[in-house]
């Protein structure tokens, strides 16, 4: 079997890997092992999901796998890329005079959230999806958009730069919770629809011997359950980091006065 890939995907991959390597070479610094692992994880995830057999099945109208690709692009690859980016690599870009104002605006949590929500909902809005995603032969552009909004989405949680502070832990939890709106708003109608929503998927047999309807329900469930479980894990991870951190931190901002309970005597005529 020939491992095929879409040109657009290859371009994105090349840009990512090339950029990473170029920065490392130019700045003559070496990312840590963990960063390298995270970054290669991201690349592997993209390669696995967007090229080869998976992509082949998507082109044969497997809606479920198409949803899986999207989840990888917005939920798996961006956090790994951010985790794999050292601060010295991000700094020259994000503190650049021309880029900084835009970057500051885009990485404001609410802006990032709305941008992601809007993009994600729009990509799945049937008229848009049918016109852009499928009639148009290039998939790569939609994928790139998803990867980009994914990166922006995760930035407030995983910012590699102290200059771009991360959200506080409680706010991170809130942010994750907020994410359920676009995800549910997109996934629930697809799953519960009474007919096939996207014209592109009405036709023909789908891979794995699924009927178009069954494929759609499966895809909807993958998105719904998949994001639910995934976000639950992210929420748990954030929560326990928060717990551990508060557990270890001494009281801030106050004199460490030892607890002094009241006297045993009943008299208060002091």
């Amino acid at each position, binding site marked *: 079997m020939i491992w095929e890939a879409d040109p657009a995907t290859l371009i994105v991959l090349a840009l990512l890997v090339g950029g990473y390597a170029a920065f490392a070479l130019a700045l003559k610094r070496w990312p840590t092992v963990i960063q390298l692992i995270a970054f290669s994880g991201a690349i592997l995830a993209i390669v696995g999901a967007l090229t080869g057999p998976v992509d082949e099945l998507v082109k044969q109208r497997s809606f479920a796998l198409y949803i899986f690709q999207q989840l990888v692009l917005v939920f798996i690859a961006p956090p790994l890329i951010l985790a794999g980016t050292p601060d010295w690599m991000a700094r020259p870009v994000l503190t650049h005079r021309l880029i900084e104002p835009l970057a500051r605006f885009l990485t404001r949590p609410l802006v990032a959230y709305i941008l992601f929500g809007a993009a994600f909902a729009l990509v799945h809005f049937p008229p848009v999806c049918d016109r852009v995603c499928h009639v148009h032969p290039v998939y790569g552009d939609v994928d790139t958009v998803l990867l980009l909004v994914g990166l922006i989405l995760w930035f407030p949680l995983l910012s590699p730069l102290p200059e771009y502070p991360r959200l506080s832990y409680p706010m991170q939890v809130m942010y994750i919770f907020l994410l359920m709106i676009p995800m549910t708003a997109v996934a629930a109608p697809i799953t519960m629809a009474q007919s096939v929503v996207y014209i592109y998927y009405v036709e023909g047999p789908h891979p794995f011997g699924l009927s178009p309807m069954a494929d759609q329900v499966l895809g909807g469930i993958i998105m719904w359950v998949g994001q639910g479980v995934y976000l639950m894990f992210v929420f748990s991870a954030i929560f326990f980091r928060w*717990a551990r951190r508060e557990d270890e931190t001494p009281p801030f901002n106050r004199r460490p006065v*030892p607890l002094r309970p009241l006297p045993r005597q009943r008299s208060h*005529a002091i």
Partner: protein
Amino acid sequence: MAAQPRPIHAEQTSYLEGGGIYGWLTTIDHKRIAVLYGVTAVFFMALGGFEAMAVRTQLMYPNNHFLSAQTYNQFFTTHGLTMIFLVIMPLETGFFGNFLIPLQIGARDVAFPRLNALSYWIFLFGAITLNLGWLYGGLPNGGWFGYANLTERYYSPGPNIDFFDLGLLVLGVSSVMSALNFFVTIINMRAPGMTFFRMPLFIWSILVTVILILLAFPSLTVGLIFLFMDRYFDTHYYRVIAGATPILWQHLFWIFGHPEVYIMILPAFGLISEVIPVFSGKPLFGYPMMVYAIIAIAFLSYGVWGHHMFATGMGPVADMTFSVTSLLIAIPTGIKIFNWLFTVWGGRLRFTTAYLFALAFVIQFTIGGLSGMMHASPPIDLEQTDSYIIVAHFHYVLGLGALFAILAGFYFYWPKVTGRMLSETLGKWHFWLAVWSFNATFFPMHFLGELGMPRRIYTYAPHMGWDFWNKWETWNAYIIALSFIPLLLNIYWSLTNGERATEDPWDARTLEWSVPTPPPIYNFAEVPTVTARDAFWVAKYGSVEASGLTQSAPAIAPALVDVSKIHIPAPSLYPLLMGLGIFGMALGMLIGWYRVIFTAMALLVFSAIAMAFEYPNWGEENPHAVAESFLGLDSRKVGMWSFIGSETVFFACLISTYMVYKSRSLGVYDAGILNIPLTSFSTFVLLTSSLLMVLALAAFQRDDHKWGTIWLIGTALFGCIFLGGQVYEFGDFWLEHGMVFNANLFSQCFYTLVGFHGFHVFIGVVWLLVMAFAGIFGKLNAKRSLAVEICGLYWHFVDIVWVVIFVLVYLMRTVKGA
């Protein structure tokens, strides 16, 4: 909040002393309010218990005639309502919550003491409303979840369901108020150093509980308002004939109802997590995990309401979703049970009565939780729902769960509340009788359920396999009643002859045990600084993990503060009067005597305004409030935002009903009638009013009270114009087009949604005018600009709701719904 200087008499050491009856009626001390809640709840527990005994007696034999069908239906309904709303909730959040929150977080009182008293009085009058049927017309008889359309006037012509409807509405108001209060207290009034992960687990559980109350009750309120309208104004919210569906009630009810289940069980978890570590002599095992589990349970509880409705035919996708989310709850619940077990493991156990109740809770709750796993799976649920196995399940989690936790907490905290010890011997009698009788009564209900006995049947045929167990259960139910006799004896003995309790009789771990017993009215002479979880234990023994055998430091040092300098808020009669006003309104509605309604409303408004002006320096009651608060935020602002959050859910329920019913509506009227040009004009008016509001705030912040007042009046004026537009619009529809309120689904949903928004605008205008008067009389300045800001938040919220309504209702009027 309020802190008017009031001298504290040096001899007044206990919150229980002084004041007489009037003192109790006007009290705003959280500990006294707790006691009031406790006493009320115990009274209703006796009443609910009596109903349960009557119900059990009727079921003793097949074809029994002890109760008539009608009485039986009233008794089982009221038993459920009483135990849920008038016993477990007030005991857990009302009694333990009120008493313990300030003491455990190191505060002198709750954030809004008068609101606290108001919550109690409204609760009391709501409870009376719910039980008015004893005097007239019969108790509620539709089951505690009162499924529509059985509750419609046509099928339930008597006042029974009216008591249910109005009683729950009033109780809902009380619950939301106290939840708001506790939320702000816990968020903002913690002692210095008490970070989230140093809070006792009971505080965590109450925090999550009150969030659930704030965000779940609005849904019930909306459902009850619809029911009220159906019964009084002949609308069709649950009437099939108009295209509506009675299933809407089930959704609205269970969106509230499932979180409600956790509202009842989470504080129980909290109490157990306080009792078990103390008597195991160990810190709570896996504290972060326990907190996580509470949050996860609460979070999941919003996504599982459908598991009460598997039999209603929601379709396979909804069934699957709700089934899987419900099953997931098993994971955090398992975490909790094992963490309790491992807190016991390796401890130095002291088997006091409180500990025994807590241990029994763990096992019994496990049984209840495990049968819950069955009902989460629709294939099993379709055999078991509405059968006695469900009765067994919720009595295991609430009766043998929450009630046992309450009893554990009762034995644990009685010395702190009253200053006297209970008899351990009588306590053990109580425990063993209770464990035997509760289990023997409720465990066989599993078998009855398996043998197909439906719940809520007043009679049954012989030879169904049910005869023996029903007789067995009834006899054991009598033992349950008997088991409370040692408790009553114990209370009597303790209050008359009981040994005086010391500050720390159990060698406990948290801050409430560091204050004198019973606590003084001001709680803490000196507000403690917290450096670790289990703060009091650390103060006594040096570290959380210390074995507790040798004190590392002298735990008790003399207080260095002059307690007469402590400011505590003065008592107030207005909460009671406001409660009476609300009661009068409900009563007037019931007897249909509008003069009573208006008199009561006048009393309500009068007391509200009088209460607002009770403190002469309103607006800056406590200049140090912000500096002393935990987050550096003003409690009133936190409270306003929390209230707005709660309102959001209220409007979401109204809007979704509109969206759903718009497309199901029959008859001539539809959204085509809406007047876009007029509403566009109103939209601009409301947006402009918001601009004036922020300008007013900016002016007051500059200390420019002249322009501030002008802008405030302008805002109110624009609000009035908006209201005028709405009145014109409604009048036009009503008089010109003949679209009366209950013409069809569209008309009633439209009038209700837009009308409720208009009502909010009206409240806002009144508030603005009050602020404007304060401005005219020079009461507002830069320091007090927060009062304007809070009023503004409300006003902008009303604006934001209109932004949504304008688009969803007006501009999308031609779009097909759902």
